[in-house]
């Protein structure tokens, strides 16, 4: 049988809805099916993406070097963004380099203030989650700005606490803020994967292959 004839036969069978070789890709999601999150592939791929990125960002580059200067420029942009938001309720705020100075309080944006570790973990989790590339890119493009927005809120709250309730600043900065950022990333990740499930159920779009338990 020629290749074209074989393809024609397969197409006809698919049109009837009776595929002789059911694959994981063609199966609709079942409520009780194991989530792709529980497969081994997900944590491995996420770790493969996250570890080099974390090492790259947190490597102690020489002060004044090209990479260090770029990171400082990026932090300065972050400081300007945070300063613009803080400026909405404190008109005396001035941003100079990575320092946000107000009439009551000043704070400097340093490497970990951008919550890069949480951003990298979220990026790795979304990139490792089995879904089509287009949706994966869209999820990353929505999730990272959403997390940046949450971080800007965190910086504004910290500035306000520093200006008005100085005693609470350290505690909130060291305890509540990291929990808030990780919780935000967790919720954003769950929302990103939820959208995938709802769409795949609604449109009977094929799911990508994942480790599902036999039922």
């Amino acid at each position, binding site marked *: 049988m020629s290749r074209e004839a074989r393809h024609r036969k397969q197409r006809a069978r698919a049109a009837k809805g009776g595929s002789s070789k059911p694959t994981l890709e063609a199966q609709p999601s079942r409520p009780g099916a194991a989530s792709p999150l529980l497969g081994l592939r997900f944590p491995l791929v996420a770790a493969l993406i996250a570890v080099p990125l974390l090492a790259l960002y947190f490597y102690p580059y020489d002060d004044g070097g090209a990479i260090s200067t770029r990171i400082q420029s990026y932090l300065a942009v972050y400081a300007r963004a945070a300063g613009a938001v803080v400026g909405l309720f404190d008109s005396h705020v001035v941003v100079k380099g990575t320092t946000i100075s107000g009439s009551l309080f000043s704070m400097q944006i340093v490497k970990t203030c951008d919550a890069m570790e949480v951003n990298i973990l979220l990026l790795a989790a979304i990139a490792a989650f089995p879904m089509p590339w287009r949706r994966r890119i869209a999820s990353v493009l929505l999730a990272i700005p959403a997390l940046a927005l949450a971080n800007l809120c965190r910086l504004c709250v910290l500035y306000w606490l520093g200006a008005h309730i100085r005693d609470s600043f350290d*505690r909130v900065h*060291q305890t509540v803020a990291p929990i808030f950022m990780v919780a935000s990333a967790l919720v954003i990740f769950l929302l990103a994967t939820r959208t995938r499930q709802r769409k795949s159920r609604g449109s009977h779009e094929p799911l990508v292959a994942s480790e599902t338990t036999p039922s």
Partner: protein
Amino acid sequence: MTPGRKKLWRFVLVFIFTLALLAWPYPFLGRACGSVVCWGVNTWIMTAKDTSDVPSLERDPRPGYDWYVTEVVWNRPTDSLRAKFDVDVHQTLYLPLMVFAALMVASRATFGNRHFRVRLETLGLALLVLRAMLRFYLLERWTDGLAHDGPFDMFLHVVQLAVAAPRGMAVAFPLILWFLLSRKALLAATAARTG
């Protein structure tokens, strides 16, 4: 929303609420935990070899923040001070432990007693991992404090900067660890549910 997703959301919400409640550095708790951690580190984390180089962890009377212990390294045999550095036990020990505690509470509230064994195994493994992490952290601070600059020290330094130093990691790392440890049990539970 599927029942599985509902459970997942419930789990996340209970976890966040419990963690926020447990992780707040209450002043009286800080002083007590600082002392307990100093004692624990001196008797449990440090080995005899370590204590010959690093005799003890001492409480640092820093106002407003009770969670620092100061590690002191002495020159032997002259007993002159060689290096001194702070260890934030809230960040390195208390917060990760509370993440595990919150995970256990959330697991109990969501899955009932079915995951009791997983919780026990997780806690045991978590304590071992935390011990290893704290040892690593102290080793890194020690080599850093003594200005060692070999490739292994640089590796330790980069790992410390990427994994231990960012404050989010104190929450994210135990969460990832718990997920990896309980993944098998969750998979088995799902398989049993689906028949």
